């Protein structure tokens, strides 16, 4: 199994080192042909408008959607990555995005940087809370019927799953708790098995 980290912009290095720490082969993805070499793809935190534009300009968006639709890819998006994965972006529908995850996200839902925070979050399926960072984070304001909410805050859901799509408003890659990545690797494993 190979885990790709979309390395157009953002904190891809942190995701890559966490995945490597968990013992999987990791590959940075910048070009469409590199998408075909991975079973799981992490879309990191960063600036969603920047990533979206570069994805379209170099055709990485089509490659991701095609491989996902062929059942050969699991995807995990954090923060900007969640926005990029979403079907709808409130007030910013024109910015390029993949539209795979059946949710509507609201960008900067907590406010500007001075509202960015860290806290302990109860997560479904985890027996102890996860310590998470929200950085100019988005929140989900609508979830489709096939979307399962794994964690929420007052403002709305912040961690969701839809089949082999996983998305979080927060940044597990900036801490040392690997449980979210472990969960994602299990989803990617399913895609990897499918291919054989």
């Amino acid at each position, binding site marked *: 199994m190979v885990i790709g980290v979309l390395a157009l*912009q953002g904190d891809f290095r942190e995701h890559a080192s966490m995945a490597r720490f968990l013992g999987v082969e990791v590959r940075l993805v910048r070009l469409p042909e590199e998408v075909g070499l991975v079973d799981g793809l992490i879309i990191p935190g960063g*600036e969603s408008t*920047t990533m979206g534009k*570069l994805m379209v300009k170099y055709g990485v968006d089509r490659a991701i959607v095609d491989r996902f639709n062929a059942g050969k890819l699991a995807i995990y998006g954090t923060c900007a990555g969640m926005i990029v994965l979403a079907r709808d972006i409130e007030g910013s529908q024109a910015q390029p995005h993949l539209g795979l995850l059946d949710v509507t996200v609201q960008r900067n839902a907590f406010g500007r*940087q001075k509202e*960015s925070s*860290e*806290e302990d979050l109860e997560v479904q399926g985890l027996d102890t809370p996860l310590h998470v960072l*929200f*950085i100019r984070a988005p929140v989900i304001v609508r979830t489709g019927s096939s979307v399962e909410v794994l964690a929420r805050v007052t403002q709305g859901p912040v961690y969701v799953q839809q089949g082999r799509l996983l998305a979080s408003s927060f940044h597990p890659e900036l801490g040392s708790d690997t449980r979210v990545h472990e969960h994602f690797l299990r989803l990617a494993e399913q895609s990897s098995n499918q291919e054989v």
Partner: protein
Amino acid sequence: MAEIGTTKVKRGLAEMFKGGVIMDVTTVDQAKIAEEAGAVSVMALERIPADIRKEGGVARAADPGLVEQIMDAVSIPVMAKVRIGHISEARILEYMGVDFIDESEVLTPADVTYHIDKWQFKIPFVCGARNLGEALRRVSEGAAMIRTKGEPGTGDVSEAVTHMRAVMNEVRKVQSMLEDELVVEAKDLGVNVELLREVRTLGRLPVVNFAAGGIATPADAALMMTLGADGVFVGSGIFKSSDPLPRAKAIVAATTYWEDPKVLSEVSKGLKAGMPGIDARTLVELDKMQVRDN
């Protein structure tokens, strides 16, 4: 219980800028062009460095009204510059909810001895540095991000190259040091030995390190990434060029695809004239912005 303004949260925003381009803007229109080009953030200021250099006088923080208009006009994070040591300019920007403050040598220093105690703020700061000592002194004052100083407003990348190489070279040196050597090095650099130990363990600065000061072309941006920058600031290089949008887009692409000469050659083709620029070696000491603090 959610905690705001922590060190992790402040340094975390800088992590999100990595691999990206932060562009200087002086108007709402320029901010929109920067966002359209794919900037990860814009730096709001009254005059860009090339004009400060040309016009002289005292350069101060931008009009808060302008900063506010820019914050309303774009969805990406907004930074703004304050004079070195100007606590009150910084408090104004913090109150307004600017996402990042640049305590910058590009403006005329307000305090010739002290930098701002940045730990007292809920929002993060970036500061300039020419070497590891300067960088770590700023980090110990609470900077959540570092950038090379370069020589702003010249369009000459050589000083940014010198500063990035100096930081990287010193980091490599520290990595190979024994504990007793590290203690003396900390004393020589005027930095906390604990912080220097962290650099030795990480093999890099404990905060994100961008390049700035003289970057004017896509190849300049790629060069700085090659030398180990986490991302780039472009000041005068975009809006002092004859056709800003295509150049800004090309610099964004070059910062991502810095290792890919095919992409670099494509995006570099046919850009209209860059900023005229000044050879940094022709500047007398008094005209250099990089020597305004240390």
